């Protein structure tokens, strides 16, 4: 029998439709329907200046909003053949890692909620609030920060703010291990998460899984290793595991948070003085840039005529990860709650995913409605 879940369902945070093919309690396979939050951002961006484009790119996704603006700015910097000032690069790393911590914490909290473990769900949110404070202290906003511009960041940071962020990180680090241990060695949590939703390395390669999902299946691939700022200035370890189950994906995120705290400490200790923004003259041309978002690899491909954006294409990590989940993880799962937990462990971000719309050639329904609206 086909069991439809969504688009609005107690187990789902965002609108998506999961069709689970079940026999008895067992889930045999799954199919996922998209399209509930497609807004047409790329189409809106065409013919706009980068100042408007960067504002729109931030609203691709609310959870990983920061990395979209950074990638957008770095694409334009690549077209111009320049780099942001070194202090701005350090500040970008600082914000990126803070954003990664809060994103991973909310991803894990969603997973615990899907496993019906309210205690850890609330603990994760409890850990996340000080990190949101740090982001607000640095950029002035909690979610959509408006912090990046082409050629640097918008404003400089005071030493007192950096000291406060350092203190928040110290507090987080001292509390953190207690909560990780609850999950790492919890016998019941282990029973529900180990060997559930398993994806092998070969399957991960076939599905093009990226980010913590790919790394938990043994794909040691982190674009931060190749990014010039990280490469030249910082020391960090790429976290990866071999198991490829729900437990590995969640633990992978937990361990990455530890690395992010390490990186933030390095930034605050070594941040050089200087400018945070410089003027960049943008020539006509095409450029693409890839960055490691909290969920994996995000790519921007932009074509500009020197002033306006001619064409833009955004590829976000959740597209590959959700497909990997539907095809390789949600097969022969023991129960429906396990299938929901597996889906949550992938950390799906639907607002990111909805990047294109496919129009049925026969009906042309969507096109017609579009035309009516314009009239």
């Amino acid at each position: 029998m086909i069991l439809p879940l969504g688009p609005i369902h107690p187990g789902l945070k965002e609108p998506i439709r999961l069709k689970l093919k079940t026999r008895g309690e067992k889930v045999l396979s799954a199919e996922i329907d998209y399209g509930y939050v497609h807004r047409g951002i790329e189409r809106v961006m065409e013919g706009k200046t980068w100042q408007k484009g960067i504002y729109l790119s931030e609203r691709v996704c609310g959870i990983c909003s920061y990395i979209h603006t950074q990638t957008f700015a770095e694409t334009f910097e690549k077209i111009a053949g320049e780099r942001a000032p070194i202090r701005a690069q350090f500040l970008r790393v600082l914000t990126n890692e803070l954003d990664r911590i809060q994103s991973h914490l909310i991803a894990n909290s969603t997973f615990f909620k899907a496993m019906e473990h309210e205690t850890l769900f609330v603990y994760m949110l409890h850990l996340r609030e000080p990190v949101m404070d740090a982001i607000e202290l640095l950029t002035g906003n909690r979610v959509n920060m408006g912090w990046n511009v082409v050629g640097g960041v918008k404003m400089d940071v005071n030493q007192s703010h950096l000291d406060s962020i350092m203190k928040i990180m110290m507090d987080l680090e001292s509390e953190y291990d207690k909560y990780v241990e609850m999950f790492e060695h919890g016998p019941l949590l282990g029973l529900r998460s180990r060997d559930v939703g398993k994806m092998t390395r070969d399957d991960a390669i076939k599905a093009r899984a990226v980010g913590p999902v790919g790394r938990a299946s043994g794909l040691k691939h982190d674009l931060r290793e190749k990014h010039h700022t990280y490469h030249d200035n910082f020391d960090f370890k790429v976290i990866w595991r071999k198991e490829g189950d729900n437990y590995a994906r969640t633990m992978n995120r937990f361990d990455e948070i530890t690395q992010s705290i390490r990186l933030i400490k390095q930034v605050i200790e070594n941040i050089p003085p200087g400018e945070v923004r410089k003027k960049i003259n943008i020539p006509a041309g095409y450029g693409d840039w890839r960055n490691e978002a909290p969920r994996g690899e995000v790519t921007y491909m932009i074509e500009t005529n020197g002033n306006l954006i001619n064409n833009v294409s955004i590829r976000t990590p959740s597209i590959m990860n959700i497909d990997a989940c539907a095809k390789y993880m949600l097969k022969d799962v023991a129960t429906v709650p396990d299938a929901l937990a597996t889906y949550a462990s992938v950390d799906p971000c639907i607002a990111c995913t909805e990047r294109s719309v496919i129009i049925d050639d026969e009906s042309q329904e969507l096109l017609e409605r579009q035309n009516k609206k314009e009239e």
Partner: protein
Amino acid sequence: MLDALKDVIRKSSIHVCLINTGGCNGCDIEVVALLSPRYDLEQYGIYVHNNPREADVILVTGAVTEQWREKLQRIYSKAPEPKIVVAIGNCPLSGDVFNQEGSSVYAPVSDFIPVDAEIPGCPPRPSEILAAILGVGPDAIAAKGRQKP
């Protein structure tokens, strides 16, 4: 007597359903942040359940996209009376940046379902969302419940 009892129950146990009709997720995670110990939504008797069939308050975030134009009304009709709708963020009010030429967005939400309270902001702070739900929620639900159909 019975009405007074119903009032008390309606005011003190509010189930919330969150519908993202095509936003950027920012408002959704601010609602999730409300569940954290700092804001602690559940101390006011509010429970975020995401089930429209038992919802008293429907939170709408996001401009209305193509898929939601009919589904939003269907979900609204599934929620039992009395119910109120709170629109969170700029998207349900005006479409925000998405409401431009070429996009597939049909804001505002009030064209499709009646909206009782609006919270502007991109996204609004969790404390503002909490204040709005508490400000309009319990009394409006009780008042609507007393109306004869």
